[in-house]
């Protein structure tokens, strides 16, 4: 294994769960589609490896690739219905109570209603990224992101409690 392949393997193992979860946010929680998207993200990571060396923050680099890949790959797909998937929740060894499962489905449904940009912003916020980093990923000012996050949070909370 070359040093580049070793470094790639490490990046893959460390970042796969968060990339996968982000993709789920775009696919209404569809397991198979999210898996394909996550794979596509890491293919792009390998293809853009040279630009990685110039980046100080690996998380910003990966999230940019992930958000752009989802934007690109899902541009011609119809919205994924929510009913038949989220099977990972049912199959999960960690037993989620029925009400928790329902709440999570509701959350996915409400995220699905947001515009693509707002979806990206709130998914990054849910993943716990600092607002400054979200601004760098989205290419917007810190102030603009702060205002938008506030607005999307209200929108999402209202939708879920309806």
């Amino acid at each position, binding site marked *: 294994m070359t040093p580049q*392949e070793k470094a*790639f*393997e490490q990046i*893959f*193992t460390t970042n*796969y*769960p968060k990339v*996968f*979860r982000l993709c789920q946010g775009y696919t209404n929680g569809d397991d198979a589609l999210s*898996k394909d998207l996550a*794979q596509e993200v*890491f*293919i*792009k990571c*390998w*293809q*853009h490896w040279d*630009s*990685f060396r110039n*980046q100080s923050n690996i998380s910003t*680099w990966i999230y*940019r*690739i992930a*958000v*752009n*890949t989802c*934007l*690109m790959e899902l*541009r*011609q797909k119809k919205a994924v219905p929510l009913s038949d998937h989220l099977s*990972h*929740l049912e199959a*999960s*060894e*960690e037993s*989620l109570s029925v009400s*928790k499962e329902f*709440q*999570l489905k509701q*959350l996915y449904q409400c995220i699905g209603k947001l*515009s*693509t*940009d*707002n979806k*990206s912003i709130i998914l990054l*916020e*849910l993943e*716990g990224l600092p607002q400054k980093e979200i601004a*760098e*990923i*989205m*290419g*917007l000012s810190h102030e603009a992101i702060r205002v938008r996050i506030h607005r999307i*949070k209200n929108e*999402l*909370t209202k939708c*879920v*409690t309806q």
Partner: protein
Amino acid sequence: MKTFEDLKSQWEEQPQPKIPQDGSKIIMQKINGIKNKQRITNGVLLTTTLVLIGFLFYINAYSNLIVTLGLFLMIGSLIVRIMIEYVSIKDLKRMDFTKDVAAFRTDMISYYKKRITTHYVATPIILALYATGFIILLPSFKQNLSKGFYTYIVVSAIVILIVMVFFIGKQIQKELKSLKQIKNSQTS
């Protein structure tokens, strides 16, 4: 009343996705697969061009100016169309996914605008040249082929043209929809 913090903890409490075994190796295999596919495409394009050029010499097409012109227009327009498509796919693959989302979106919009210009300007010209080439060849087809085969060629050419225009129309619609979707994805 739920707060956003409740939603965040719900999100965080989701079962963690399993990291696929040998995931990075599978990705490396996929990347090699993509490279091989590119090599095969290049090979097919080169071979097709060489075969077509070889065919021109084989049938001594250059000895008859009208036939040469007709074949040149038909084959030339096909090759130009294939090359445009090939360059366009390369452009899409070359897009920089490490840019911020706003800059990436601008790139995508300009890519689709370029595609639509190709569809509205280059494609009709290419189709017209292809049809002209075919019409130029018709007298020599009539002269050298049986009546039945000649009718077959004329009818099938018209059918192919209609089918082609239909599919191109569909593709334009699809790409216009993508462009609209990308533009709409940005909301204040």
